[in-house]
Protein backbone atom coordinates (compact mmCIF):
# COMPACT_ATOMS: atom_id res chain seq x y z
CA UNK A 1 0.00 0.00 0.00
CA UNK A 2 1.33 3.39 -0.93
CA UNK A 3 1.19 5.74 1.98
CA UNK A 4 -0.42 9.04 1.17
CA UNK A 5 1.58 12.14 1.82
CA UNK A 6 0.13 13.65 5.00
CA UNK A 7 -1.96 16.76 4.55
CA UNK A 8 -0.39 18.63 7.43
CA UNK A 9 2.79 18.65 9.38
CA UNK A 10 2.36 20.78 12.46
CA UNK A 11 5.42 22.68 13.53
CA UNK A 12 6.22 25.40 16.02
CA UNK A 13 8.98 27.96 15.85
CA UNK A 14 9.95 29.70 19.08
CA UNK A 15 11.84 32.93 18.65
CA UNK A 16 13.67 33.31 21.94
CA UNK A 17 14.79 36.76 20.91
CA UNK A 18 11.16 37.86 21.26
CA UNK A 19 10.33 35.96 24.44
CA UNK A 20 10.10 38.25 27.47
CA UNK A 21 9.24 35.44 29.87
CA UNK A 22 5.82 36.89 30.70
CA UNK A 23 4.18 33.46 31.20
CA UNK A 24 1.02 34.39 29.28
CA UNK A 25 1.44 31.14 27.32
CA UNK A 26 1.58 29.14 30.54
CA UNK A 27 -1.66 30.68 31.81
CA UNK A 28 -3.40 30.29 28.47
CA UNK A 29 -2.37 26.66 28.29
CA UNK A 30 -3.60 25.90 31.79
CA UNK A 31 -6.97 27.45 31.01
CA UNK A 32 -7.37 25.85 27.59
CA UNK A 33 -6.35 22.34 28.50
CA UNK A 34 -8.09 21.83 31.84
CA UNK A 35 -4.85 21.61 33.75
CA UNK A 36 -5.31 21.66 37.50
CA UNK A 37 -3.94 24.55 39.51
CA UNK A 38 -0.43 23.80 40.68
CA UNK A 39 -0.18 24.27 44.42
CA UNK A 40 2.84 24.48 46.65
CA UNK A 41 2.74 20.77 47.42
CA UNK A 42 2.84 19.95 43.70
CA UNK A 43 6.03 21.93 43.25
CA UNK A 44 7.61 20.60 46.44
CA UNK A 45 6.99 17.05 45.29
CA UNK A 46 8.03 17.91 41.72
CA UNK A 47 4.66 16.88 40.46
CA UNK A 48 3.53 20.22 39.05
CA UNK A 49 1.88 20.02 35.66
CA UNK A 50 2.87 22.66 33.14
CA UNK A 51 2.41 21.60 29.54
CA UNK A 52 4.40 24.66 28.58
CA UNK A 53 6.86 26.15 31.02
CA UNK A 54 9.27 29.05 30.91
CA UNK A 55 12.71 27.98 31.93
CA UNK A 56 14.79 30.80 33.32
CA UNK A 57 18.55 31.01 33.22
CA UNK A 58 20.86 33.65 34.65
CA UNK A 59 23.82 34.47 32.50
CA UNK A 60 26.76 36.83 32.78
CA UNK A 61 26.71 39.68 30.29
CA UNK A 62 30.47 39.74 30.21
CA UNK A 63 31.57 36.13 30.66
CA UNK A 64 35.06 37.15 31.78
CA UNK A 65 33.67 38.70 34.97
CA UNK A 66 31.68 36.98 37.74
CA UNK A 67 27.94 36.76 37.15
CA UNK A 68 26.82 39.24 39.81
CA UNK A 69 24.17 41.89 39.73
CA UNK A 70 25.02 44.46 37.12
CA UNK A 71 26.79 41.83 35.07
CA UNK A 72 23.79 39.50 34.82
CA UNK A 73 20.85 38.96 32.54
CA UNK A 74 17.87 36.65 32.51
CA UNK A 75 17.25 34.26 29.65
CA UNK A 76 13.93 32.55 29.04
CA UNK A 77 13.17 29.45 27.07
CA UNK A 78 9.59 28.21 26.71
CA UNK A 79 9.66 24.42 26.77
CA UNK A 80 6.68 22.39 25.66
CA UNK A 81 6.37 18.89 24.23
CA UNK A 82 8.72 18.91 21.26
CA UNK A 83 6.49 16.50 19.30
CA UNK A 84 9.59 14.56 18.27
CA UNK A 85 9.47 12.68 14.99
CA UNK A 86 11.69 10.08 16.59
CA UNK A 87 10.11 10.24 20.02
CA UNK A 88 11.80 8.37 22.86
CA UNK A 89 8.51 8.19 24.75
CA UNK A 90 6.74 6.11 22.14
CA UNK A 91 8.60 2.79 21.96
CA UNK A 92 8.59 2.36 25.74
CA UNK A 93 4.83 2.43 26.15
CA UNK A 94 3.63 -1.13 26.74
CA UNK A 95 0.06 -0.37 25.70
CA UNK A 96 0.64 1.96 22.71
CA UNK A 97 -1.03 4.82 24.55
CA UNK A 98 1.39 7.22 22.93
CA UNK A 99 1.93 7.01 19.21
CA UNK A 100 2.72 9.16 16.23
CA UNK A 101 -0.05 10.23 13.93
CA UNK A 102 0.39 11.12 10.29
CA UNK A 103 0.30 14.85 10.97
CA UNK A 104 3.49 14.68 12.97
CA UNK A 105 1.82 14.87 16.34
CA UNK A 106 2.91 12.76 19.23
CA UNK A 107 -0.50 11.77 20.52
CA UNK A 108 -1.32 10.65 24.03
CA UNK A 109 -4.43 8.49 24.17
CA UNK A 110 -5.76 8.95 27.68
CA UNK A 111 -8.10 6.01 27.69
CA UNK A 112 -5.35 3.60 26.70
CA UNK A 113 -2.84 4.84 29.26
CA UNK A 114 -2.30 2.54 32.23
CA UNK A 115 0.14 4.83 34.02
CA UNK A 116 3.45 3.01 33.88
CA UNK A 117 5.26 6.37 33.56
CA UNK A 118 7.93 4.81 31.34
CA UNK A 119 7.35 7.57 28.78
CA UNK A 120 7.99 10.36 31.27
CA UNK A 121 11.18 8.65 32.37
CA UNK A 122 12.35 8.34 28.81
CA UNK A 123 11.55 11.92 27.77
CA UNK A 124 14.71 14.01 27.65
CA UNK A 125 12.71 17.25 27.72
CA UNK A 126 10.72 16.40 30.87
CA UNK A 127 7.47 17.53 29.36
CA UNK A 128 5.27 14.59 30.30
CA UNK A 129 3.23 14.91 33.45
CA UNK A 130 1.61 12.25 35.54
CA UNK A 131 -1.67 12.67 37.35
CA UNK A 132 -0.78 11.62 40.86
CA UNK A 133 -4.16 12.78 42.15
CA UNK A 134 -7.70 13.02 40.95
CA UNK A 135 -7.98 16.51 39.40
CA UNK A 136 -9.79 19.02 41.61
CA UNK A 137 -10.81 22.58 40.93
CA UNK A 138 -12.29 25.13 43.33
CA UNK A 139 -16.07 25.25 43.03
CA UNK A 140 -15.93 28.69 41.39
CA UNK A 141 -13.83 27.36 38.51
CA UNK A 142 -15.93 24.30 37.64
CA UNK A 143 -17.76 26.08 34.86
CA UNK A 144 -14.64 27.33 33.15
CA UNK A 145 -13.47 23.86 32.14
CA UNK A 146 -13.01 23.47 28.41
CA UNK A 147 -15.60 20.98 27.12
CA UNK A 148 -13.40 20.12 24.12
CA UNK A 149 -10.66 18.67 26.29
CA UNK A 150 -10.86 15.52 28.39
CA UNK A 151 -10.32 15.98 32.10
CA UNK A 152 -7.58 13.48 32.81
CA UNK A 153 -8.25 11.32 35.82
CA UNK A 154 -5.79 9.99 38.34
CA UNK A 155 -3.13 7.57 37.16
CA UNK A 156 -2.61 8.66 33.58
CA UNK A 157 0.00 10.62 31.71
CA UNK A 158 -0.61 13.90 29.94
CA UNK A 159 1.37 16.36 27.87
CA UNK A 160 1.17 19.20 25.38
CA UNK A 161 -0.95 18.20 22.38
CA UNK A 162 -0.31 21.27 20.18
CA UNK A 163 -3.95 21.98 21.12
CA UNK A 164 -5.20 19.10 19.00
CA UNK A 165 -8.79 20.06 19.85
CA UNK A 166 -8.28 23.34 17.99
CA UNK A 167 -6.61 21.61 15.06
CA UNK A 168 -9.52 19.21 14.92
CA UNK A 169 -11.94 22.13 14.90
CA UNK A 170 -9.92 23.76 12.14
CA UNK A 171 -10.21 20.60 10.11
CA UNK A 172 -13.96 20.57 10.64
CA UNK A 173 -14.74 24.21 10.00
CA UNK A 174 -12.14 25.38 7.51
CA UNK A 175 -11.49 22.17 5.57
CA UNK A 176 -14.77 20.39 6.07
CA UNK A 177 -17.42 23.05 5.97
CA UNK A 178 -15.78 25.63 3.74
CA UNK A 179 -13.62 23.22 1.75
CA UNK A 180 -10.55 25.45 1.98
CA UNK A 181 -7.01 24.76 2.98
CA UNK A 182 -6.05 25.55 6.54
CA UNK A 183 -3.79 28.61 6.43
CA UNK A 184 -2.11 30.74 9.07
CA UNK A 185 -4.61 33.53 8.46
CA UNK A 186 -7.72 31.40 8.73
CA UNK A 187 -6.45 29.71 11.87
CA UNK A 188 -5.61 33.00 13.53
CA UNK A 189 -8.93 34.54 12.54
CA UNK A 190 -10.91 31.65 13.98
CA UNK A 191 -8.81 31.54 17.14
CA UNK A 192 -7.62 28.06 16.20
CA UNK A 193 -3.89 28.45 16.74
CA UNK A 194 -2.73 26.71 19.91
CA UNK A 195 -3.65 28.65 23.04
CA UNK A 196 -0.04 29.60 23.85
CA UNK A 197 0.47 31.02 20.36
CA UNK A 198 -2.73 33.06 20.52
CA UNK A 199 -1.74 34.40 23.93
CA UNK A 200 1.86 35.34 23.17
CA UNK A 201 1.99 39.16 23.17
CA UNK A 202 5.32 39.44 21.40
CA UNK A 203 4.74 36.81 18.74
CA UNK A 204 7.60 34.68 19.98
CA UNK A 205 5.64 31.51 19.35
CA UNK A 206 4.82 30.80 15.71
CA UNK A 207 2.75 27.79 14.80
CA UNK A 208 1.86 26.44 11.41
CA UNK A 209 1.71 23.76 8.81
CA UNK A 210 4.97 22.82 7.17
CA UNK A 211 3.08 21.25 4.27
CA UNK A 212 1.65 24.69 3.45
CA UNK A 213 4.35 26.44 1.38
CA UNK A 214 3.04 29.88 2.31
CA UNK A 215 3.03 29.38 6.06
CA UNK A 216 5.03 31.58 8.36
CA UNK A 217 6.85 28.62 9.93
CA UNK A 218 8.08 27.60 6.50
CA UNK A 219 9.37 31.12 5.92
CA UNK A 220 11.17 31.16 9.24
CA UNK A 221 12.60 27.71 8.73
CA UNK A 222 13.85 28.61 5.26
CA UNK A 223 15.61 31.58 6.76
CA UNK A 224 16.85 30.07 10.00
CA UNK A 225 16.86 26.27 10.04
CA UNK A 226 20.51 25.22 9.81
CA UNK A 227 19.40 22.26 7.70
CA UNK A 228 17.97 24.54 5.04
CA UNK A 229 19.76 27.85 5.43
CA UNK A 230 23.51 28.04 5.37
CA UNK A 231 23.67 31.74 6.20
CA UNK A 232 25.59 32.95 9.26
CA UNK A 233 22.46 34.76 10.41
CA UNK A 234 20.53 31.48 10.65
CA UNK A 235 19.53 31.25 14.31
CA UNK A 236 17.59 28.03 14.34
CA UNK A 237 18.34 25.04 16.51
CA UNK A 238 16.51 22.15 18.10
CA UNK A 239 16.78 21.48 21.80
CA UNK A 240 19.05 18.50 22.60
CA UNK A 241 19.41 17.94 18.89
CA UNK A 242 22.25 15.48 19.29
CA UNK A 243 19.87 12.97 20.85
CA UNK A 244 18.40 12.61 17.33
CA UNK A 245 14.85 12.89 18.57
CA UNK A 246 14.01 15.09 15.56
CA UNK A 247 11.79 17.62 17.39
CA UNK A 248 9.05 19.51 15.58
CA UNK A 249 9.71 22.60 17.67
CA UNK A 250 12.51 24.78 16.36
CA UNK A 251 14.04 27.50 18.51
CA UNK A 252 15.62 30.67 17.16
CA UNK A 253 18.41 31.79 19.43
CA UNK A 254 18.62 35.20 20.99
CA UNK A 255 20.29 38.03 19.14
CA UNK A 256 22.56 39.37 21.80
CA UNK A 257 23.66 42.99 21.39
CA UNK A 258 25.58 42.86 24.69
CA UNK A 259 27.63 39.95 23.52
CA UNK A 260 28.64 41.80 20.36
CA UNK A 261 29.79 44.76 22.43
CA UNK A 262 31.83 42.55 24.74
CA UNK A 263 33.41 40.82 21.79
CA UNK A 264 34.15 44.13 20.10
CA UNK A 265 35.91 45.36 23.22
CA UNK A 266 37.86 42.17 23.60
Amino acid sequence: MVQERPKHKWTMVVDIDRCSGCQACVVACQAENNITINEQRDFLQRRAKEWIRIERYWEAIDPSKPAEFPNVKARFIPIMCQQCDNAPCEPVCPVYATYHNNEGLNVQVYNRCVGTRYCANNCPYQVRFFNFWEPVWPESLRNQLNPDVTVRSRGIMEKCTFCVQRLSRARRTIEGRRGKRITDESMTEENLMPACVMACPTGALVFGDREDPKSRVNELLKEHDPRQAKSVAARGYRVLEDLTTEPNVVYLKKVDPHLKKVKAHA
Partner: protein
Amino acid sequence: MLVFLWLVVPGPWPITGGLAPRVFAHYFWGVESTLYRPAPDQPLAFSHVTHAGALEINCAFCHRTVEKEETASVPAVEQCIFCHKIISGTGDAAVAEVQKLRDAFQEEKPLNWVRVHRLPDHVQFVHEPHIRFFAQQDPAAPLEATCATCHGDVKTMTKVKQVRSLKMGDCVNCHKDYNAPTDCAACHY
Protein backbone atom coordinates in the same frame (compact mmCIF):
# COMPACT_ATOMS: atom_id res chain seq x y z
CA MET B 1 -19.01 -21.45 40.95
CA LEU B 2 -17.75 -19.20 38.15
CA VAL B 3 -20.98 -19.56 36.27
CA PHE B 4 -22.87 -18.60 39.37
CA LEU B 5 -20.77 -15.45 39.82
CA TRP B 6 -21.30 -14.52 36.19
CA LEU B 7 -25.03 -14.72 36.64
CA VAL B 8 -25.12 -12.66 39.81
CA VAL B 9 -22.47 -9.96 39.52
CA PRO B 10 -23.86 -7.02 37.59
CA GLY B 11 -21.97 -6.43 34.39
CA PRO B 12 -20.75 -3.08 33.15
CA TRP B 13 -23.21 -0.54 31.78
CA PRO B 14 -25.13 -0.85 29.46
CA ILE B 15 -25.54 -4.49 30.45
CA THR B 16 -26.69 -3.42 33.91
CA GLY B 17 -29.21 -4.53 36.34
CA GLY B 18 -28.69 -8.12 37.35
CA LEU B 19 -28.51 -9.40 34.25
CA ALA B 20 -28.48 -12.92 33.61
CA PRO B 21 -31.76 -12.76 31.66
CA ARG B 22 -30.58 -10.08 29.31
CA VAL B 23 -27.21 -11.66 28.77
CA PHE B 24 -28.91 -14.96 27.97
CA ALA B 25 -31.31 -13.23 25.64
CA HIS B 26 -28.40 -11.68 23.80
CA TYR B 27 -26.28 -14.76 23.45
CA PHE B 28 -28.99 -17.29 22.76
CA TRP B 29 -31.55 -15.38 20.79
CA GLY B 30 -29.40 -12.53 19.51
CA VAL B 31 -31.81 -9.92 20.74
CA GLU B 32 -29.45 -7.03 20.39
CA SER B 33 -31.77 -4.38 21.71
CA THR B 34 -31.95 -6.15 25.05
CA LEU B 35 -28.33 -5.15 25.55
CA TYR B 36 -29.01 -1.51 25.99
CA ARG B 37 -30.35 0.31 28.97
CA PRO B 38 -34.15 0.44 28.99
CA ALA B 39 -35.67 3.76 28.00
CA PRO B 40 -35.47 6.02 31.05
CA ASP B 41 -38.49 7.83 32.47
CA GLN B 42 -38.37 11.51 31.65
CA PRO B 43 -39.65 14.28 33.94
CA LEU B 44 -42.33 15.00 31.38
CA ALA B 45 -43.85 12.54 28.94
CA PHE B 46 -42.56 14.28 25.85
CA SER B 47 -43.61 12.37 22.77
CA HIS B 48 -41.38 12.14 19.73
CA VAL B 49 -44.23 10.18 18.12
CA THR B 50 -46.35 13.33 18.16
CA HIS B 51 -43.69 15.92 17.41
CA ALA B 52 -41.39 14.15 14.98
CA GLY B 53 -43.92 11.59 13.73
CA ALA B 54 -47.40 13.07 13.39
CA LEU B 55 -46.41 16.73 13.14
CA GLU B 56 -43.27 16.00 11.09
CA ILE B 57 -41.21 18.66 12.79
CA ASN B 58 -37.61 18.68 11.57
CA CYS B 59 -35.12 17.32 14.13
CA ALA B 60 -33.06 20.49 13.90
CA PHE B 61 -36.03 22.69 14.77
CA CYS B 62 -35.71 21.65 18.43
CA HIS B 63 -32.17 20.24 18.47
CA ARG B 64 -30.97 23.51 17.05
CA THR B 65 -27.22 23.16 17.04
CA VAL B 66 -27.06 19.66 15.58
CA GLU B 67 -25.90 20.88 12.16
CA LYS B 68 -23.49 23.46 13.52
CA GLU B 69 -21.88 22.34 16.72
CA GLU B 70 -20.58 19.51 18.84
CA THR B 71 -23.78 18.81 20.71
CA ALA B 72 -27.24 18.43 19.24
CA SER B 73 -28.55 20.34 22.28
CA VAL B 74 -31.69 19.57 24.25
CA PRO B 75 -34.11 22.48 23.94
CA ALA B 76 -34.55 24.79 26.89
CA VAL B 77 -38.00 25.24 28.46
CA GLU B 78 -38.28 28.65 26.79
CA GLN B 79 -37.82 27.02 23.43
CA CYS B 80 -40.73 24.64 24.06
CA ILE B 81 -42.86 27.58 25.19
CA PHE B 82 -42.21 29.17 21.81
CA CYS B 83 -44.93 26.85 20.46
CA HIS B 84 -46.67 25.80 23.64
CA LYS B 85 -47.59 29.34 24.62
CA ILE B 86 -50.41 28.83 22.13
CA ILE B 87 -50.68 25.08 21.63
CA SER B 88 -52.14 23.28 24.64
CA GLY B 89 -52.33 19.81 23.15
CA THR B 90 -55.23 17.53 22.37
CA GLY B 91 -56.53 14.97 24.85
CA ASP B 92 -56.38 15.14 28.66
CA ALA B 93 -53.01 13.41 28.95
CA ALA B 94 -51.32 15.76 26.51
CA VAL B 95 -52.88 18.83 28.13
CA ALA B 96 -51.63 17.71 31.54
CA GLU B 97 -48.08 17.30 30.19
CA VAL B 98 -48.13 20.70 28.51
CA GLN B 99 -49.37 22.15 31.80
CA LYS B 100 -46.28 20.66 33.52
CA LEU B 101 -44.15 22.45 30.98
CA ARG B 102 -45.94 25.76 31.51
CA ASP B 103 -45.61 25.36 35.27
CA ALA B 104 -41.89 24.85 34.88
CA PHE B 105 -41.73 27.99 32.75
CA GLN B 106 -43.73 30.00 35.30
CA GLU B 107 -41.56 28.79 38.17
CA GLU B 108 -38.42 29.39 36.12
CA LYS B 109 -37.22 25.87 36.76
CA PRO B 110 -35.44 23.77 34.16
CA LEU B 111 -36.71 20.34 33.21
CA ASN B 112 -34.12 17.76 34.23
CA TRP B 113 -34.21 15.51 31.19
CA VAL B 114 -32.55 12.15 31.69
CA ARG B 115 -29.74 11.63 29.26
CA VAL B 116 -30.26 8.65 26.96
CA HIS B 117 -27.09 8.62 24.84
CA ARG B 118 -24.02 9.11 26.93
CA LEU B 119 -20.44 8.72 25.76
CA PRO B 120 -17.51 8.61 28.16
CA ASP B 121 -15.64 11.83 28.84
CA HIS B 122 -12.57 10.78 26.86
CA VAL B 123 -14.54 10.59 23.62
CA GLN B 124 -15.03 13.85 21.78
CA PHE B 125 -18.01 13.20 19.58
CA VAL B 126 -19.05 16.06 17.31
CA HIS B 127 -22.42 15.99 15.57
CA GLU B 128 -21.67 18.57 12.90
CA PRO B 129 -19.25 16.62 10.62
CA HIS B 130 -21.37 13.46 10.87
CA ILE B 131 -24.50 15.26 9.74
CA ARG B 132 -22.55 17.06 7.03
CA PHE B 133 -21.03 13.83 5.74
CA PHE B 134 -24.31 11.96 5.47
CA ALA B 135 -26.00 14.96 3.90
CA GLN B 136 -23.28 15.01 1.24
CA GLN B 137 -23.72 11.28 0.64
CA ASP B 138 -27.36 11.72 -0.21
CA PRO B 139 -28.42 15.37 -0.53
CA ALA B 140 -32.05 14.39 -1.12
CA ALA B 141 -32.39 12.49 2.16
CA PRO B 142 -34.20 14.28 4.98
CA LEU B 143 -32.28 15.16 8.13
CA GLU B 144 -34.18 12.58 10.18
CA ALA B 145 -32.81 9.79 7.99
CA THR B 146 -29.30 10.93 8.87
CA CYS B 147 -30.09 11.08 12.58
CA ALA B 148 -31.67 7.63 12.38
CA THR B 149 -28.28 6.14 11.43
CA CYS B 150 -27.27 6.21 15.09
CA HIS B 151 -30.43 7.13 16.99
CA GLY B 152 -32.84 4.73 15.30
CA ASP B 153 -36.35 5.56 14.25
CA VAL B 154 -37.04 8.06 17.03
CA LYS B 155 -40.39 9.12 15.63
CA THR B 156 -41.85 5.72 16.50
CA MET B 157 -40.49 5.68 20.06
CA THR B 158 -42.84 6.73 22.84
CA LYS B 159 -39.84 6.84 25.14
CA VAL B 160 -36.48 7.43 23.52
CA LYS B 161 -34.15 4.48 23.84
CA GLN B 162 -30.62 3.76 22.75
CA VAL B 163 -30.58 1.41 19.75
CA ARG B 164 -26.90 1.12 18.90
CA SER B 165 -24.10 0.13 21.19
CA LEU B 166 -22.16 3.35 20.40
CA LYS B 167 -19.06 1.72 21.79
CA MET B 168 -15.70 2.19 20.15
CA GLY B 169 -16.02 -0.92 17.97
CA ASP B 170 -19.33 0.35 16.65
CA CYS B 171 -17.83 3.75 15.81
CA VAL B 172 -14.67 2.32 14.26
CA ASN B 173 -16.56 -0.15 12.07
CA CYS B 174 -18.66 2.65 10.65
CA HIS B 175 -15.61 4.89 10.21
CA LYS B 176 -13.92 2.11 8.26
CA ASP B 177 -16.99 1.54 6.09
CA TYR B 178 -17.16 5.20 5.13
CA ASN B 179 -13.40 5.76 4.90
CA ALA B 180 -13.52 8.24 7.78
CA PRO B 181 -10.39 8.85 9.89
CA THR B 182 -9.50 6.08 12.31
CA ASP B 183 -6.62 7.94 13.88
CA CYS B 184 -6.97 7.83 17.69
CA ALA B 185 -6.65 11.61 17.85
CA ALA B 186 -9.75 11.98 15.68
CA CYS B 187 -11.92 11.34 18.75
CA HIS B 188 -9.65 11.01 21.79
CA TYR B 189 -8.00 14.21 22.98
